[in-house]
Each structure stands twice: as C-alpha cells, then as structure tokens.
C-alpha cells in the first residue's frame, strides 16, 4: 500500500515519542550495568512508581507541570538510592545470581506495594493543555514536542555530566576498574548511589511523560516497558549511554513501523525477533565493545 511522505513523517513522529520514553528508562539499565555489572530488574517498576508519584502529585498537590516533574524526579531518585542501599549494597560481594534474584524481588515488592494502595488502574489528570498544529498534513501535538524535547534535553545533560564533570569521570572510572579506583581516593559508594539516583530520576521523568501521553496507569505497567527498555539497552550496547539511547529509538521505531504495516498483535513478536537477530549478529550490541577479561 503506497502511502504519502506525510504519512511516514507522522509515523516517524510517533516513533520518536515512544523512543524517547524508552531511552530514559534504558539509560538507567545501562548506567547501573556499566558501574556494577548488574542488571537492575527492578528499574521498570521504579518507572511505574514514578508514574504513580506523578499521579499523586497531580491529584493531591495540583502543582504546575514543571514542579510536578521535579518532585517526581527527586522522589524517584530517592527511591533508587534507597533500593541500592537496602537491597543491592549488602550483596556487592555475593554471587551475581543473588543480586539478580534480589532485583526481581524488589520489583515484585514495588508492584505489590503499589497494588495494595491502588488495585484499580488510575487516571492521571492532564498536566498540560494540548495544542495540535497542522504542518503540511502532519499533525504535531504540543505533547509530542514536549516529550521529545524534554527527553533529549535530559539525555544531553546526562551526557555532559558523564563526560565533563568529576562525578562523571568517577562513574566511568569505576566502570573500567572497580578495584583500583578507591585507591585513588574516589568515594565509590557515593558514586554508586549517585548513579542509581540519576538512573531512577530519569525513570521518574519517563514515568511523568508516560502519564502525560497515556494517562491510565496501573501497578503492572512497568513490567513490559521495563523489559523492552532493557532489551533496547542491550541492543544498543549495555553499559554505554549512547548505546542505550540508540537502542531505544531503534526499538520505538520498529514498534511503530510494525504496527503501521502489520496487525498490532504481531508487534511484540516481530520486535523481539528482530532484536534477537540483532544480538546474534552483534552480541555486544551496536556500540558495545567486547569486555576482555585478562587473566
């Protein structure tokens, strides 16, 4: 079926919006893996709690959008640090499997804790008034614009922090060699906590933007989104920040294009098959480099 360029432009916009949200979550996975070589399976549920915090802030405090976003990001960051201190820090020297199981357990705990308070899906009141502009046949909504630009801004800020600030240098150093970095006087525990805080804060921002775009939230929404973001991070090269972003936009793009061309029931099947193929062809992900373990 031949479609006009306008149609594809519209679909590209849809993909950018979806990809932006995935990117913010995928970054959290990548950063934690980079610094601790651990997959934080609870991250998708941190995103879900972020969406619920946004819901609470919107319904109870009724603040303007920017304040709600800041509150959600701060609260999510706090949650991330809390999880790290309580669940992951005691297991730093334990076998990897224990850390993974703990992460899954934390995720289940967050889901069921939220379920206890909100057994029904909740509707988030609109935080922003939406305006739709028609640009030569392509409909651009202010919401799409805000989601895409806000995500890009956050990603650029993160990139700056990681490449130009001492904290960022410390993070990268720890991901290279964890044993000798403390010898240089770097407070490793603090840097790890900061990493979790940033990752969780970004997930909180993703939760806010998700609530803007899809205002119905429920305690299990973090599962699928979390898995997809994790896969996006792996495809892009887990441990690298640029890789997480690229992987997320690829994932968003494939999802939208599959639905545009096939019935939507095939979406997850095709997306995951494609990503599996990508991993088989390039196991370290697009931007990842093989980790050489020197004996």
């Amino acid at each position, binding site marked *: 079926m031949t*479609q*006009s360029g*306008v*149609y594809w432009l*519209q*679909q590209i916009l*849809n993909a950018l*919006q*979806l990809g932006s949200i995935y990117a913010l979550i995928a970054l959290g996975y990548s950063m934690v893996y980079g610094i601790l070589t651990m997959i934080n399976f609870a991250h998708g549920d941190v995103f879900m709690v972020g969406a619920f915090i946004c819901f609470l802030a919107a319904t109870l405090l009724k603040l303007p959008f920017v304040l709600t976003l800041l509150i959600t990001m701060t609260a999510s960051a706090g949650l991330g640090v809390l999880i790290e201190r309580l669940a992951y820090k005691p297991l730093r020297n334990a076998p990897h499997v224990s850390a993974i199981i703990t992460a899954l357990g934390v995720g289940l705990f967050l889901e069921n804790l939220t379920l206890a308070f909100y*057994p*029904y*899906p909740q*509707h988030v009141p*609109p935080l922003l008034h*939406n305006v*739709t502009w*028609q640009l030569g046949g392509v*409909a651009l*909504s202010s*919401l*799409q614009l805000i989601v895409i630009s806000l995500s890009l801004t956050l990603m650029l800020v993160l990139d700056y922090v990681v490449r130009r600030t001492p904290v960022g240098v410390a993070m990268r150093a720890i991901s290279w060699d964890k044993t000798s970095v403390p010898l240089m006087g770097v407070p490793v525990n603090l840097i790890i906590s900061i990493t979790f805080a940033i990752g969780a804060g970004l997930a909180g921002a993703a939760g806010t933007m*998700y609530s803007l*775009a*899809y*205002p*119905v939230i429920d305690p299990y*929404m973090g599962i*699928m989104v979390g898995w997809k973001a994790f896969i996006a991070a792996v495809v892009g090269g887990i441990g690298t920040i640029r890789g997480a972003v690229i992987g997320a936009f690829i994932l968003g793009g494939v*999802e*939208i*294009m599959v*639905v*545009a061309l096939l*019935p*939507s*029931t095939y*979406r997850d099947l095709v997306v995951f098959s494609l990503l599996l193929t990508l991993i088989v062809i390039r196991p370290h992900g697009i931007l990842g480099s093989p980790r050489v373990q020197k004996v």
Partner: protein
Amino acid sequence: MKGRVLIAVAFGLLALNCPSRAGKLQFYNTRMDQSDSVGQQSPMKKQLSLFLNFLVLSAAIALIGCGARAPKEQVIKIGAIVELTGDMPAVGASSRNAAELAVATLNRAGGITIAGKQYRVELVTEDNGAKPDQSAAVANKLITQDEVIAIVGPNASLGAIPAAEIAEANRTLLITPWSTNPKTTMNTASGAPKQYVFRACFTDPFEGRVLAGFITGQLGAKRAAVLYDVASEAPKSQAELFRQTFEKLGGSVVAFETYTTGDRDFSAQLTKIQSAKPDVIFLPAYYNDVGLIAQQARRQGITQTLIGSDAWSSPELVKMSQGSVEGSYFVNHYATDIATPTAREFIAAYQQKYGKTPDDVAALTYDAMGLLFHALKAAAAPERQAVRDAMAAIAGYPGVTGDIRFVPGSGDPVKSAVIMQVKSGQFAWVTNAVP
C-alpha cells in the same frame, strides 16, 4: 444456649480438677506418709477424675451439637460473578450494587416462596478480575463449594464465555446481565444453543445492525474505520459484525485496525485510520481504552465522529476521556431520561442506597436478578434443573430495561436498544431501535 452450656462445662471442669481444700490442708500438715506424693492422687482417684471429666465434656458436646441442629431459617444461595478488580472495576461495582439491592429488597419483603416453603436469599459474590481463567475458577467454586442454585454474571464477554461453559457442564443456570457476544449462549461445537445459559441483554448481531443502520441512515456516513481489541471477545465480534452489516447497507469499511488488551499507544493505528479519510470511526472498546484512544485521536488532529458499542456506557467514560468523546454516539441498553415507571422506581431506589445514577450494567443486573427470582418462584422445587426450566418458560417479564421474554429454545431475549449521545459530558438519549 451454647454460651450457657459452655459456662456450665467450665465450672464443672474447674470443680473436678482443682485440688480440694482438704488436700491443701493435708499439704500444710505435711504428713510423713504422704510427703512425697502431695498433690498426687491414688490410681483409683485418678481414674474416677478422668471418667468424670469425660462425662462432663461429652455432655457438653452433645448439648452444643443438639443446639446447632435446631431448625434455622431456610436459605437459598445465588452466586454473583463480577469484575471487581482488573480493567473494568466500575462495571463490577455497578453489577454488585444492583444485585445486592435486588436481594435486600426481596429479603425485606419476606424472602421467596418456592414450592410452598419460605426462603431467604443469600448472595455469594466472587471477583473474576475481568480475566477468563479466573472467571472459570470462581464459577467452579460457586457451583461445587458454595452449592449455589444459580449464577448471575459475569458481565464482560471475555469472562462470561468461560463461566458459561463451566455452568453448562455442571447443569447450573447462569444468566449474564451484560455479555453481548453470541458465543456465550451458544455451544460453539454444535452451533446449538446452550441449555443452561441465559442473558438479560441483546446480542452483538442486533447491535451491529442497529449501529450500521443509524450511521448510514441518520448520520449519512458512507465510509467507516474500525479500531478494536483483537484479544477481547465482545469488541472482536462487534467489529466483525459491524463490518458485515455496514457493507451490506452499502457502506465501505476503509480501515480495520486492531490493538491488543493492555496496549497504551495507538498512534500508529490512528495515523493509518486518519490517512484512510473515514466519515466515522467505530470504537467498540471498554471505557478504559476509549479514554486513551479518543484522547490520542483528538491529539493527532482526528476530528471525525466516534461511534461506540454498549461497552461505552460507564459513568467513568467521560472522566477518562477528558472531553474527547463529546458529540460521540453509542448504543445502550436503557436510557435514564426516557425511563418507564418500573425503571424510575429502580433508579430512585438505587440512588437512595448508593448515591449514584445506575448505569446499564446495574439495570441489567437488576433485571437478571428479577428474572431469577421469577424463575425461583415458579420452580417446582429448589433445585437447579427446576429453576432452569422455569427460567426458559418465562413468557414475559416487565424489567427495568424493557419487557423480557426468551426466544423459545434459546437463552437470548428479544430486546430493543437505544442510541445515546455524549452531550456536555452527559449521556443523552437520541432514538430507540426496535428489533
């Protein structure tokens, strides 16, 4: 009675087992020949004490047991399966409220008389979480463990169809208030109607005809787009039936898009629909999905009128759509603004008890309960088969949602529908559609 027996038993045991004053004096006198066996009883005394304890206890048990077997009020149990948790809690809450109102009203009037005996009705409510597997499980529990005489519910077809299978297999009457998918009352293997499953509402084929006729006739639309949940029974059958009937009336379905339960992003499908340039968009979705889809559609600049199925009728719809369904039309089972005297009575009673206007799920559940009570009264005995036969024989029941009678040999009633429009955030009646 039980309490008094227990107190007597307690005193008896205390008296038997507490050491006597004589024994205590003995202790203080420290008789040499009993100094090492103070407090101990001789073997014979021990045996006697044990025997007396045993007598007291068995007497107590016999008395309490007798007390419990004393004749009590006769109770007849009706099971209700509703969607209290999951995707559509508003539907379940409405249904449960109406069922409880019906039972309370009946019991206040003295209960029900079956074959000359007076019974009180007890409602056993179970949650199916709007899931097919849970529906089947609770249906089984109600039939085998709670031994209910009949089941009302589930409401959504995705739960009603599996529950109906269980009821049919166990030869128990099940009446669903709101499920419109034809499969619920039909034996899919043979194509024959089920014997034990009934419904209080019209079915999807009728709904499809009503909508297609309304759209082509009153709205004059020639091109329609459809977006439906391919994983849910009712929307799927409604979408397909709508397409058949719309095309038979000369219209063309220019886009036929799907999504899966739980999807949140519909931008790709909506963009496809938009590029097909339809006159109207048919959206047979439950109220939680309609909100998301309608909002995203308006955001993308889709201005066409939206058309809904009977699943739109929840009061939560407008709240969740934030104005994006204004001006849309949908089919419903009854309208509060053209209510008959029977309906008005029900609406007033519901409003008094729950502080809300009842929606169609509540009205249909109330009618389903009414039909069940009618069948129970006419039944030859308080047994499942007798109740089922009485239900099938109902010639005409004046319900809240209209006059209900079953097509002979089938569990489907002949009912009329109403078309509603969302005007200023309220549901307003537009027209009636008679079969």
